[in-house]
């Protein structure tokens, strides 16, 4: 009898442990837009409750789209882009299942409060034409992600196009050829002061710059990201970004989470379904809403903040999304003609250590970057209005070559790069210095988005102190991006990127991909 009782107790203990999910849950991976970083802890709580190991990878909209479109599809078990438009456009093989909107957040313009006051925008409906007038009068510049690489930039851009069309019901193919529409949107985009491939990074740029005393005027971003940004600014006793909801319509991100079935069995699918159900429970919705996201058909919302015009319950009119083909044409038009031209200096490491695979990869990457048919496939092609400066370097700079983005001129640049051979030491500071000088000498430099991109595989002679002194003395603000290759010393590139509010990318496995990404920031 005693034995039976012990057995029963043991069994009960086992069963209760099973009820607590003692068993190991699945490994589950997400690929998501950067705006969801703030939601990750909520998802991780769920993963923990299921004893599952969850991993997150943050990528831009275009990267997620291209992966969906590729033959292999995305590696992850779930996709969580900013907007379902991109899934509809890129998931042509229909691999994404149960795509479900988790929250909504419109893409709006945050303007530094004092600036908004000076422009007379506080407490009034503001239309896109008012924004245009401010840009044209030289009273407003803004940060905005690249429309071809990131959803928030694409959303702002489509809202600009819609408005320029006089708010006809939807953008149709012929509309994009209208010269007036093109000129209006081009004028609006001339207000871009910095760009990026990631909405989250753009918001960090705003906050980090504010910390260092550099105040940007404004930023296009998600309403929820503006809330995050303002929470940080308020902690630094900085003035907030005043929310401008363009009255003639904005694009709304619907943050859809979808399952990608890799045939890993019912357990994985069930885990996903349970996660969706978890994210829809009232308590969790309340927490998601607290981040400034809108949860439709519920009464949960973050409190309004009249100080900066934040009101997640405020009705915003959405622009109608055009047909996918029209979106594609619009993005091409953005990249090829309407965006603010870039002025890019490419510092390319041709030191001796690049011999062999390094130089092969670098030349391959340049073939991609300077061949319009290739770069246009991922919407990072140059336009004839762009200026490209190529400076090969080793222990000192070699002969710089400059060209426009005209296809023939690109070809000339490419040929000259292909002729370079690896040799000598490494001094990236010499190259950065020369790039700065050349950029400063460019006529009408204000009409361009300038950037320096340093690609290196090694450790440079350390002339950082001298260079940074000169940089600080110059009034020109040029971000210096880095691309590492092989066993490059990242700290030196990090130092430059940090000093100039830029970013370092790992070119380790794929240099071409790194150059492509950096183009999204310029």
């Amino acid at each position, binding site marked *: 009898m005693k034995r039976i009782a012990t057995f029963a107790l043991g069994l009960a203990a086992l069963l209760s442990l099973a009820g607590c999910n003692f068993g190991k849950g699945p490994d589950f991976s997400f690929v998501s837009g950067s705006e969801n970083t703030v939601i990750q802890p909520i998802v991780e709580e769920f993963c923990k409750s299921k004893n599952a190991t969850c991993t997150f990878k943050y990528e831009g909209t275009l990267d997620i789209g291209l992966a969906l479109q590729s033959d292999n599809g995305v590696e992850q078990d779930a996709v969580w882009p900013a907007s379902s438009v991109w899934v509809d456009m890129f998931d042509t093989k229909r691999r994404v299942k149960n795509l479900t909107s988790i929250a909504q957040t419109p893409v709006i313009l945050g303007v530094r409060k004092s600036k908004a006051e000076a422009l007379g925008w506080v407490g009034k409906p503001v239309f896109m034409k008012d924004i245009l007038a401010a840009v044209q009068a030289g009273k407003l510049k803004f940060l905005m992600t690249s429309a071809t690489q990131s959803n928030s930039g694409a959303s702002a851009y489509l809202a600009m196009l819609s408005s320029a069309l006089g*708010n006809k019901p939807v953008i149709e193919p012929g509309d994009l050829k209208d010269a007036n529409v093109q000129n209006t949107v081009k004028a609006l985009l001339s207000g871009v002061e910095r760009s990026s491939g990631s909405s989250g990074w753009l918001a960090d740029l705003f906050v980090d710059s504010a910390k260092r005393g550099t105040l940007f005027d404004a930023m296009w971003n998600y309403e929820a990201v503006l809330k995050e940004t303002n929470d940080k600014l308020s902690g630094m006793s900085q003035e907030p970004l005043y929310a401008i909801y363009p009255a003639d319509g904005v694009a709304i991100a619907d943050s859809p989470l979808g399952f990608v079935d890799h045939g890993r069995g019912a357990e994985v699918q069930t885990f996903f379904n349970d996660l969706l159900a978890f994210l829809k429970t009232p308590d969790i919705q309340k927490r998601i809403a607290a981040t400034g996201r809108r949860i439709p058909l519920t009464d949960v919302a973050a409190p309004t903040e009249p100080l900066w015009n934040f009101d997640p319950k405020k*009705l915003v*009119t959405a622009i109608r999304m055009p047909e996918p083909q029209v979106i594609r044409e619009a993005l091409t038009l953005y990249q090829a003609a309407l965006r603010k031209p870039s002025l890019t200096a490419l510092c390319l490491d041709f030191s001796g250590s690049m011999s062999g695979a390094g130089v092969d990869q670098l030349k391959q990457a340049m073939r991609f970057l300077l061949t319009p048919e290739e770069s246009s496939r991922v919407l990072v092609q140059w336009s004839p209005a762009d200026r490209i400066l190529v400076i090969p370097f080793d222990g000192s700079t070699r002969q710089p070559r400059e060209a426009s983005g005209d296809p023939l001129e690109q070809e000339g640049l490419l040929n000259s790069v292909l002729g370079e051979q690896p040799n000598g030491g490494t001094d990236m500071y010499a190259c950065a210095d020369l790039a700065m000088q050349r950029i400063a000498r460019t006529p009408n430099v204000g009409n361009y988005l300038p950037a320096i991109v340093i690609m290196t595989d090694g450790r440079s002679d350390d002339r950082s102190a001298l260079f940074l002194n000169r940089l600080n003395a110059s009034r020109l603000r040029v971000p210096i991006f880095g691309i590492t290759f092989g066993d490059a010393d990242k700290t030196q590139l990090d130092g430059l990127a940090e000093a100039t509010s830029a970013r370092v990318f790992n070119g380790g496995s794929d240099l071409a991909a790194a150059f492509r990404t950096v183009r999204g920031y310029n």
Partner: protein
Amino acid sequence: MAISRRAFGVGLLATGAVGTGGYLAVKDRPELQGLLGNRLNLFGFIGGEKEAFLADPDVVRALGSRGLTIQSRVAGSVEMVREQALLSQKPQFLWPSSSIMVDIARQNGVRIRDDRVVLNTPIVIYSWQPVADGLMQVGLVTRTGAGHYQLDLKALLEAIVAGTDWSKLGVNMLYGRSRIVSTDPNRSNSGFMFAGLVLSLLSGNLATSEALAQFGPKAQAIFRNMGFKSPSSGKLFEQYLAGGIGGEPMIVGYENQLVEWILADRARWDRIMSGSGAKPVMLYPRPTVYSAHPLIVIDEQSHRLMDALTTSALQQLAWEKHGFRGPLGTPTGNLDSAIAGMLPADIDAVLPMPDAGTMLPLLDLLAK
């Protein structure tokens, strides 16, 4: 229509068998086929709006007791009757969402052994209370004595074609031009049916090829103004709920979609109704069209599915849990009274769909 001669015959046989012996009785009673291990797996394509119905454990059980296991794959109604990539997978049945698909299937060489409408649901317009209130002010929407909203769809379409702003339609909270969105008529049935309805309304009568020549361009303009059109009715409905009044002020859907959504989570619905936000509203166009759901039997054995689906048990589940009306367009059970009150017992103004000879060229026009 409700009971076919064949089903009636089976019933008679079953009745006669009762006296002959227990075994025979079980053998001949279709609802007990499952007990005998007389199992039949059937594979076919279904419209996505019936996915939840066929996945419902009660439905699976009811079909299982008749020895039926259904392996269905979701496909667009239009594509399942004409895409060789799907037809070459040798489906034993097709279950699209419009009677006209039977004709189109036949034209595409599908060997149809039998077809019968087993479920119905009218096309409705989903909107939001403030929009409905505005449209009532300008006379485009009227409220019946029973509290249902009827929409003068023809007048609304004319207003949309004319580029009328929301504010002119009594909806001051929305900026810009009025609009309505359906699914892609070339891929999804609700958009397809809406296209037929639009053409008929524009021409003032059941649309014919002549009407297409005259009013096709206007119908085309209405669909062009929609911009991006979702490939499936389920997706559009989700988009409507998620987008709210600012994102999706008016969409085309099936009556049963909201019912099914409410029944899936009653507490959620109660929260919405007691909350302060805009509430979903169903507008019944006058006239509307019925989305009929004909089961197309390709393999003789699929008759057993047809018989099962027309039994009162499954018809009752279809209405009470998923909001589908029966073959005659009437309720086939009792819904919880709060929801039943939202739905008129009869839809009194129904247009037939234009024939395939009109619809197929209309689809081509809308694809341009």
